[in-house]
């Protein structure tokens, strides 16, 4: 199993990839997931984040099998 990480819009372009899968070892929160793909950097106010398609906070817990998404401010409508 793994944690499925997804990126959208401008963040997807910045990251150069739309998704990746991480080992859940040592990843307890959304912030941990961000740090794992950003060389330990703290998750800033932006991007927004979601766990299993529901808005989440940096301290929201994650577990094996979760889908974690990061994306910029939304601009629909």
């Amino acid at each position, binding site marked *: 199993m793994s944690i499925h990480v*997804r990126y*959208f*819009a*401008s963040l997807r372009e910045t990251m150069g990839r739309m998704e990746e899968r991480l080992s859940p070892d040592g990843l307890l929160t959304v912030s941990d997931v961000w740090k794992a793909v950003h060389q330990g950097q703290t998750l800033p106010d932006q991007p927004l984040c*979601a766990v299993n*398609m*529901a*808005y989440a906070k940096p301290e929201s817990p994650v577990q094996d099998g979760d889908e974690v*998404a990061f*994306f*910029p*401010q*939304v*601009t*629909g*409508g």
Partner: protein
Amino acid sequence: MEIQLLETPYDPYALLRDFEMAPDHLGSHFGAASLFIGTMRDFNEGEAVESLWLEHYPGMTERELQKIAEEVRQTTPFERGLIVHRVGHIAPGDTIVLIGTWSCHRAEAMTATSKIVEALKHRAPFWKKEQRGAKSHWVEKNTPGSVT
């Protein structure tokens, strides 16, 4: 709440007519309908915009729109609701979003539609990328939802 995400252009007035004529609609059991129709402009920030790419988060988009409708309904009761939103490639003049609510009286319908519009703008995971001449760029924020 009926939610539709469409990849091709649609006529909001034809869609509304079909929605109101459907057998499961309210018949005469409502006194007010309030509608919002958002259309793609051919300009933004003083520059011509030739087209728009509208990205979304499949799955979360539908969930968030449903959640928004349920939350609004708790404080502003309405009988039926409709949200239609385009995704993908959009041309100037295309309808992007159609939001409608039907209720017994005008106050609930007008307020519910307005609340859904603002919540969608701030929470539903859609992102616009504008094509301006040879350049494209992501829209970074919404325009204000009220006038002063």
